[in-house]
């Protein structure tokens, strides 16, 4: 069956199409170029509508142990935002940590078709994939967390060659069915267990003869040499500490020119100037990003209101626990693999620090020149729930609205920010880049994020409204794999997604070393640890789609 989307304004930055009227054709779940004269079986009249590829969120916490802990800790969130069952959709609740069903439906209702969980602890990978498989409407994927696990630190301390590390990293990707590698506070979570409360980029770990810089260099090299498309996904040291711009710049340098992705960089762009020893370093960070083409960032924008911070960064979550609102929190170790901290938080627009955090995020968006290297995230739910994306898009596209909001925040913070002087307004094309084309490119997903023939027919159609917030909050149509799944902002068909993975080659001899480590220290056997493709498809219910790697010579 051939479906024609006729007359829409196409925004497809991957092909350089910026708001041109064109027809799109769908057959068998893919975009196709039909033979001349072929009649479509069904035509949607999209004259005057905006057509983009389905949006991709490359950093959103939707699965894994910490999300469940947050759900359990905040039953009031589930109660206050309850979504009633319909004939089609199941009941679900929560806004700051929505249930799997609510998250999937809500993402689709905003035009998102793919989302990535950025913190999959290898030990928790099975559960994370089960949760993501339970999240309807979305294709999903995860980044495996390394860099605080004792095996990697032990191998590095022994001075093994880079090839061994590469094998271990590649084995981890395969065993945990992940698409990228993330490092959270490199070495810091591990150092926390040795009673360190701070670990700077060049500070030696209290137990291992290593610094965070060593870990960053080794892992970014491994990811690059294995040809994993997504650069090392880095949650840098010193999150949230005034003056942490210095360690953020050092983190960028630690990659030594290899690709590196700095996530929720807003939390890492703080200066220590001014009467309150807290200031914006967005200009310095943005300049560094602009200057180094190997760096990509996502912002982790703060939006005002109640949310919950969930992070593997036990060290920083412990330091922030006294700010918990409501006053309940937890930090825990997860089987010596890494950590987990859950601290509910309310960002207040009249609070100096929170207001400045909000402004710093927007400054970063507006001062990083290349929209292909900055991604739209709130680090859901750490900066704000993902449901605030439409408002964030309006802040980026509408300077008048932005300045109105700026006039309402804490005046001291507003005075310290140069946000009011930034005249840039994002275009629709740039929004399409940062929410579609660029995430697909940085993750190595050739089959999505664009509208060329051969792509998966993940397509979002928006009404052309004056207010971008309304435009992006409620798409007219969403197609997922060629099927119409959302009409006028409401789910009309429920589909299930697949898990996106990469599978770099490695020498299986590494399993001997890993197996001995498991036998000696872990709670399960190696044989029970790895997740097979069969288990993904049959047991977990989210079959894998393998994306190619480009292995470089070592």
């Amino acid at each position, binding site marked *: 069956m051939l479906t024609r989307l006729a007359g829409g304004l196409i925004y497809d930055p991957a092909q350089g199409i910026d708001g041109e009227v064109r027809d799109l054709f769908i057959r068998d779940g893919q975009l196709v170029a039909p033979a001349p004269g072929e009649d479509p079986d069904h035509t949607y009249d999209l004259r005057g509508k905006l057509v983009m590829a389905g949006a991709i969120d490359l950093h959103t916490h939707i699965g894994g142990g910490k999300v469940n802990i947050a759900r359990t*800790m*905040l*039953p*009031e969130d589930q*109660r206050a935002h309850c979504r009633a*069952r319909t004939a089609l959709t199941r009941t679900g609740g929560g806004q700051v940590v929505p249930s799997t069903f609510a998250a999937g439906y809500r993402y689709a209702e905003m035009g998102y078709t793919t989302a990535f969980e950025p913190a999959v602890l290898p030990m928790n990978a099975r559960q994370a994939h089960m949760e993501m498989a339970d999240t309807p409407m979305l294709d999903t994927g995860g980044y495996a967390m390394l860099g605080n696990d004792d095996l990697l630190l032990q191998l590095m301390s022994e001075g093994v060659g880079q090839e061994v590390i590469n094998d271990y990293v590649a084995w981890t990707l395969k065993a945990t069915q992940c698409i990228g590698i993330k490092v959270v506070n490199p070495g810091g979570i591990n150092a926390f267990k040795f009673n360190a409360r701070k670990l700077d980029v060049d500070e030696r770990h209290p137990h291992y003869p290593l610094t965070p810089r060593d870990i960053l260099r080794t892992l970014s090299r491994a990811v690059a040499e294995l040809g994993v498309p997504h650069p090392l996904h880095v949650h840098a040291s010193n999150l949230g500490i005034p003056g942490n711009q210095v360690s953020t710049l050092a983190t960028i340098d630690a990659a030594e020119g290899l690709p590196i992705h700095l996530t929720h960089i807003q939390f890492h762009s703080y200066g220590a100037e001014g009467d309150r020893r807290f200031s914006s370093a967005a200009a310095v960070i943005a300049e560094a990003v602009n200057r180094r083409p190997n760096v990509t960032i996502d912002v982790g924008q703060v939006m005002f209101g109640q949310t919950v911070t969930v992070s593997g960064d036990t060290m920083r979550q412990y330091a922030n626990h006294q700010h918990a609102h*409501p*006053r*309940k929190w937890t930090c825990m170790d997860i089987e010596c693999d890494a950590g987990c901290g859950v601290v509910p938080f309310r960002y207040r627009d009249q609070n100096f620090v929170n207001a400045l955090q909000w402004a710093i995020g927007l400054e970063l968006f507006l001062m990083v020149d290349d929209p292909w290297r900055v991604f739209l995230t709130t680090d859901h739910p750490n900066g704000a729930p993902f449901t605030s994306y439409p408002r964030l898009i309006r802040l980026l596209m509408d300077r008048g609205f932005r300045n109105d909001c700026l006039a309402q925040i804490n005046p001291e913070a507003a005075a310290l920010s140069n946000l009011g002087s930034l005249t840039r307004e994002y275009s629709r094309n740039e929004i399409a880049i940062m929410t579609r084309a660029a995430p697909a490119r940085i993750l190595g997903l050739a089959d999505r994020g664009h509208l060329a023939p051969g792509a998966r027919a993940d397509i979002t159609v928006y009404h052309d409204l004056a207010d971008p917030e309304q435009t992006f909050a409620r798409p007219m149509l969403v197609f997922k794999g060629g099927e119409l799944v959302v009409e006028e902002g409401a789910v009309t068909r429920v589909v299930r997604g697949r898990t996106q993975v990469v599978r770099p080659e490695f020498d299986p001899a590494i399993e001997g070393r890993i197996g001995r480590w498991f036998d000696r220290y872990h709670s399960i056997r190696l044989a029970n640890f790895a997740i097979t493709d069969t288990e993904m498809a049959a047991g977990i219910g989210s079959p894998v789609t393998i994306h190619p790697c480009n292995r470089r010579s070592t």
Partner: protein
Amino acid sequence: MTSLTLELTAPPMPRIDLSALTPDRLAGRSADAIRRLPLWVGNEEATLGDLFTVTAGDTDDILIRCDSDRLDGIGTGMSRGAIRVEGRAGAYLGRQQRGGTISVSGDTGPFAGSGMTGGGIEIGGNAGDFLGAAIPGERRGMRGGRIQVRGNAGDRIGDHQRRGLILIGGDAGDYCGSRLVAGTIVVLGRTGANLGFAMRRGTLLLTSQPRLPPTFNPNGTQEPGFLALLTRDLAGLGGPFGQLQARGTRVHRWLGDLGYGGQGEVLVWA
């Protein structure tokens, strides 16, 4: 004007959420519109008219006649008017009530008055567990208003309570006033085990000697000034709560829970 009257026709098997039936939310609706209000009965959607005989009347004065303990959430979040229940009420009666009055002639289920911030609840029969307490996940129980129970109340009365007054005519269950942050609980009957467990501040006023946890210290016999004010304020109430002035103001005082700051007090009329 007569009351808006809802008479339960047959006791339902599943629990019914009646939180939509408050004077605030029914204001301006006709009896027909009220009959058409959606209700969930188990996993099936029904209308109010399927379960109740509705007689038109003043939406600020609602009368519910029911002999079932399945009707939950009566008076949730109400800010004005009156709800009278002739019969029994289920769980979460007057949850997060902000004003107005609720009276129930019979017994109520757990969590009556949980999180309430104002208004009054009168229970003619017995109250279930967690009267005026916080529900799981919440950090604050009752924060204002007054609850009167003529009969007995269950365990965990005033758990996490922060303000407001709870009056129990009969006996209280275990853990009465546990984790109390502030506010006052008066029990005219006996009390159970672990009274005042983990209380920070606030007052438990009793007529009989309680079994206190070991983390309470005796503080002698005193005549606190506030007691005369409290009993005078309550003198207008009917029944046993209106006659507390006769007990005088001389009380034995204990301080605790010492594991939690020890600024709470347990007073027992001498």
